[in-house]
Each structure stands twice: as C-alpha cells, then as structure tokens.
C-alpha cells in the first residue's frame, strides 16, 4: 500500500504533464537531430577504408567542402547546412588528422566569396587554394501521411548521404549515409 501510493501519484502527475502525455506535433528536424547525424557521419568517415588507408606517405590531397544540399520537405537554414558539414569535420577530428593522413583542408569557395563580400577577408585571401577533393552531402526525406486526413498522423524519414569526391575525374572515393525517422500526430491543418 505504502509503495503503491507514490507510484500512483507519479503516474497521475506524469499523465498531467505535457511532456509525458502529448505526442510530438512536428516531424521537423531539430538541432539535436542534425548534430547526431553529423556525429554518426563523422564516426563513419573516421572508420572508412578510404581514411584508414591514408598514411603520412600517401599522395597529398587538398579537401574542401560544400554545405549540405537540402532535398527534404523541411527548411534547413544555410547556417544549419554549413553546421552539419563543419560538425562532421570537427567530430571526425580532420584538422588533427591532416598531418597523419596527408591532407589539407581549405576554405569552401562559397564561404570565401561571402567573406569577401562582407569585407571580412582582404583581397587575395586564400587565392592559392586549389582543392583536389570535396566533401559534400545531400539530405533527403520521405513522407508518409495517414490515409485519412482526420487521423492526422505523419512520419518523415530523413536520410543524409555523405560523399568524398575526387574533383579531377569526379570519382566517388567514399560514401555513406545515416537515417532517422520522426513521427507526429495531429491534424496538419490544425
């Protein structure tokens, strides 16, 4: 009896709290989703055969990156698109690995141009950048809605496809992906 009462009270409180009782209302990606996806991709990049095969004696390469291309039904701001790539770069420890793996990271052309337009970079900044490889990614999604609009359920599956491409011939050197699913309840119109 003594132990049942607190459990019952906890259940009542839990049922009353929105966090416990309210289902998700949006299938949009959260900042945590983007961060988790980037972390997973970074781990895959670190563990990839392409990365493992590289040594200090490997042919030196110059890597740049582009922001994520968003082909989902969600808005992913340019800041978030850059964030994902930079999170992969940092979580994989690419800067620290660069000497051991014989590669150099150089600023993306788009960021260089934006910085020059803002006046953040002086004329001629990074003029010697000659990337040989590029990291980029595409985010896609598939949406499933309940057959009845009244049921109001929706599920979005997001897939982030990450690539390392050799610029000289477009050869795909490494590719992997991570996926996550988000579901929400409630009428879309509402």
């Amino acid at each position: 009896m003594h132990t049942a009462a607190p459990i019952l009270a906890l259940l009542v409180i839990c049922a009353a709290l929105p966090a416990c009782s309210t289902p998700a209302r949006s299938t949009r990606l959260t900042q945590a989703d983007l961060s988790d996806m980037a972390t997973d991709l970074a781990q895959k990049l670190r563990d990839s055969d392409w990365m493992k095969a590289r040594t200090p004696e490997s042919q030196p390469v110059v890597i740049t990156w582009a922001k994520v291309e968003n082909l989902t039904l969600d808005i992913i701001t340019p800041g978030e698109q850059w964030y994902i790539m930079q999170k992969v770069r940092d979580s994989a420890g690419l800067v620290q690995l660069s000497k051991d793996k014989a590669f150099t990271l150089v600023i993306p052309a788009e960021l260089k141009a934006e910085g020059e337009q803002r006046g953040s970079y002086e004329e001629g900044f990074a003029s010697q950048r000659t990337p040989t490889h590029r990291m980029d990614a595409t985010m896609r999604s598939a949406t499933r809605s309940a057959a009845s609009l009244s049921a109001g359920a929706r599920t979005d599956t997001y897939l982030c496809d990450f690539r390392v491409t050799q610029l000289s011939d477009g050869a795909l050197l490494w590719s992997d992906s991570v996926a996550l699913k988000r579901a929400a309840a409630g009428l879309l119109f509402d």
Partner: protein
Amino acid sequence: MTKTCTILACAGLALATLVGAGSGCAQQRLDPRAVQSAQLGRFGPVAAKLSESLAKDPSDRNYLLGRVNVLQMTLAEGVPDAGEETANELFALLRTQGLNADKTTASVVLNEGIKVWKGEPFEQAMGYHTIAVQKAMRGEWDNARAAAQSSLFLLKDFSETVGTDATAADLAKAAAEADQKAEGGGEQLLNSGYAVADSDFALGYLMNGIANRALGRDDEARDNFAAAANVDATLTDLATTLQSTRYNTVLIVEYGFGPEKRAEGPDGALSVWRPRTMSTNAPLAASLRSVSAPETESQPVGTFPVVQDVNAMSRSLRWNNLEDVRTLKSALGDALLMGGVIVASNNNSNDDAQWIGLAIAALGLAMKGTAHADVRHAELLPQRVYVVPIDLAPGFSTVTLDVEGTRVTLTDLAPPTGALQLRSVRIPTSAGAWLSMPTLVYSNDYTRQRIPRDDLPYIFGGRDVSRPSPAVMERYRRGGHLLNLTQVDLENLYREEGIALSVEDQGGRMRRHLLDGGDSLIPPLPGTVGYQRLFAQEHDPYRPKSDALKEAIAKEHQSEQSTNATPPE
C-alpha cells in the same frame, strides 16, 4: 441545393441589414492604416510597424497571423533578408500539427478557448508559398522547394457527397439532413464523407517547378509544371514556357487584396468571405529594355495569365475549414426541424420568405449570446498572382509591367550570378507617380549608373544611401568629399545616428529605411516595388541627430569652401 443557397444568400443580406455587416470584432483586425499604407505601396513602413508588435510566444493567438502579415509586406518591399527570421518561425508553426486539437479549424468561436490561429487551408497554402518566395529571393532554392512542396498538402474533396460545385452551405445542409436521418449522421459525413484529393494549388506547382529547375532537377520540374497545367488549362502555355525556354529571372507579381472574412448573422456568429479586389482574368503584359536603349525601344516579353485567384480559393469548399460548416449545419438543423412543418404546409406556395425568417430565427436561437465568429485572417494577402519568366541580357535592364491600367517600372535589374533569380513584385492599387518612373534619384548598393550628387552620403546632404564599402568611399573621394574620413569613421557616424547597416543590427527584422524617416540602410532588391518607391522619388532631407555627425558635416562644408576658395593654378 439552389433553394438552400437562395435562403442563405437572402438570410445573409437580411442579417447584414439587421446587425450590420462585420459588426464587432474590430479588435481582431489589422489597423486600417496598415491596409491603407499597403494600398499606397508603403510596404516597408507597414512591415516595420507590424514587426514591432510581433508576438514572441508561439502559443500567442496572433503569433502566426502577425508573421504572415509581416512577411507579406517585407517581401513586397523587396527585403527578403529581413524576412528570414519571420519566415522560419512561420514555417515552424505551419509545420506543427494539431495546434487546435479538436476539429479541422481555423476560425472558431472565441469562447471555446482556441490557442493558436493557423488560418484556413488556403491561407496556409499561401503562407507556405510566401515562405518559398522569401527563400527563392535569397537564392535558397532547396529551401524554396521545401516550402513550395509543403504548400501542396492534400485536401478534402466532398464532391462525391455534395456535388462538384458545392459550397460550404450545401455541405452544411447535407450534414444537417444527415443528422435528421440518424443521430450523428452529419458529423460522420463531415469526418468521412470526403475523398483525399491532390492539391489544385497551381501557384504551388509552378513555384515547386521553378525551384526544381533552379536546382537542376528537371524531371521533378517537368512534373510540377505539368501538374499546374493539369489543374488549370489556361496555364498550359506558361507551364511550357517555364519548362522549355531560357530565362534567368522570375517575377512573382501580386495584385490587389485578398478576400476579407466578415462576421455575419445574429451576433456575428457566422463568418463569411467577401472579396475586396474583384476577380478578373485580366492578363499581365511585360516588356523589357536595356538601360542604354531609348524608352521607345522596349521589347515585349509577353502577356501572362492569372495563376492564382485567392478569392476563388476562399469560395472553394476544399480550401476552407469545416468549423464554419459545422456552425451552419447546427443552425440549419434547427431550421430544418421547424422548416419541415413549413415545407409540408407550403408545398404549393413555395414561400421563400418564411424559410428566410426561420433560418434567421434558428440562427439567432442557436447563437444568441454565446459566440462571435473569429474573423481574424491574413488581411494582406493579394487577390491574384502572376508568374513572369524573363531572360535578362548582360548589363542593366528596365522591366515594365502593365495590369488593369496600372504600370510598374522596375529599374536596375541585372542577370543573376547563379542560374536563376526571383523577385516578388506587389503592385499597389493607389501608388504615386514613382511607380512608373524610369530613372532613380538616389543611388544605393545596387546602382551602377551615375546619379547627380551620388558622391555624398544622404546623411551629409547628398543622394547616396549606399552602405559604406571601399568602392563607395572611393566614389566619395573622387567627388572631392569625405576626404578625411575612413570607411570605419563613416560606419561609426551611422552608428552614432542609430542607423542599422545590416539585418543583424536590426535584430533580424524589418525596420523603416532612412529615406522613409527610419533608421535602416538595408536597400530593397532591384526589381521590386520597394526599390522604386524608395529610390525613384524625392524624400525629405536627413536631419542629423548626433553631435558627431553635425561636427563632421561642418568640417565637410569647411573643406568644400576652402577647396572652392583655392584659386586655380
């Protein structure tokens, strides 16, 4: 069906006389001065003013409505960067499901505790479209695609139940009759008597197609252009043009004001959409000339059909919420109960007047003293939208648009650095002569041709409202001005005056431009009406506020006088 329509129409008319159309609810509506200013084309000041009172709490009833209005006006002014925060917040809320977790509802009686305004389905579609335009104007074609595709949500199609051209009144009558046959029959009809239908939002398909074309996704672009032509056969030529021809600029041209939602019936219990700008099929004519060519050498680009009529959307059953239908059904149910006797006794006399009286009485009985329809709506939506693809030649061009006797001149348009650029052009209904002026009187970040006195900043008494940059400072110096000021010095003077030089300085929102008496130096994009209004007409001279600027102006005058007094060698 016809009889019910007649009854409702007459009842609406009679009730408008009895209680006054749109009575009450004034507190829910936009300040009329905002609409008047928008009619004059003063979109920027309207956006800035409305931005000041944006609700910060997403659970605030007006959180979403305020953002729809602000974003509409911000894009009409031509400053998409200042709409970024607003658009993202709007998208987040539109994508949140089940906010009003009862029925499919946008407009409900106030005393039922609605939490958030989310708009009618057609207002939501237009909201997504507006976000797509904002993203496209910023060159974010992937996000424009996401927003455009989101505007194409599935709709409820009751045509098999109540007929293809059925109105909300027809559906309400069918539901009321179903209630009479079996308890709960009406609710069952509304909840399951529809087929899930693909959207018929032609504008959404075209925007989605354009965004996909910009991304190089030609197959998806083709599907969307075909879908638009399938929805509306008058768009076939436009869809073919968008699919097959070469263009580097798309103008999304908006005209007039969308319908307004009025409270009608006893105590204003029923909400009804009424047009403000009448629907017509008037095409838009576009022409183009290079800035170096004489005015007489304009080349016709073509004529373009109306892509989307918002009045028509507001009339369409599939684009409206069902809460209004439920309210009407309830009242009609009472009328049918009483009317059954009348119909039986008047089968030969066909006395509509008695029906009308009964409908009014029933409505009054059902609504009296309990509720007032929520007539909040997106008051700044356009009545119609055109889509105009143009291929700009290198250099600067002037585009002229003509619709319903109004001429708009868009100066300083240059080809994009990428594959495609998009501009929102909101045609004001009562603008001044500036709307068709082919020349500018103020220089700015985008002008390249010389304008008299463009070698001195506006705050110093000149005609330049460019943000400081090395090129701008060099122009001042070549004109013999600001010889003792660095770019940083000038930026500091702007800051002393409280003038924002970036959207970040403005807290990510819209603020009034300096030429409007405001404190922002963010220029609208060329090819927008805001650009014309600000830079193609005279404004009052600037009045310095800070001692630092007053001192700098005095020094500048001294420097000019000493230069003028120096005899030539």
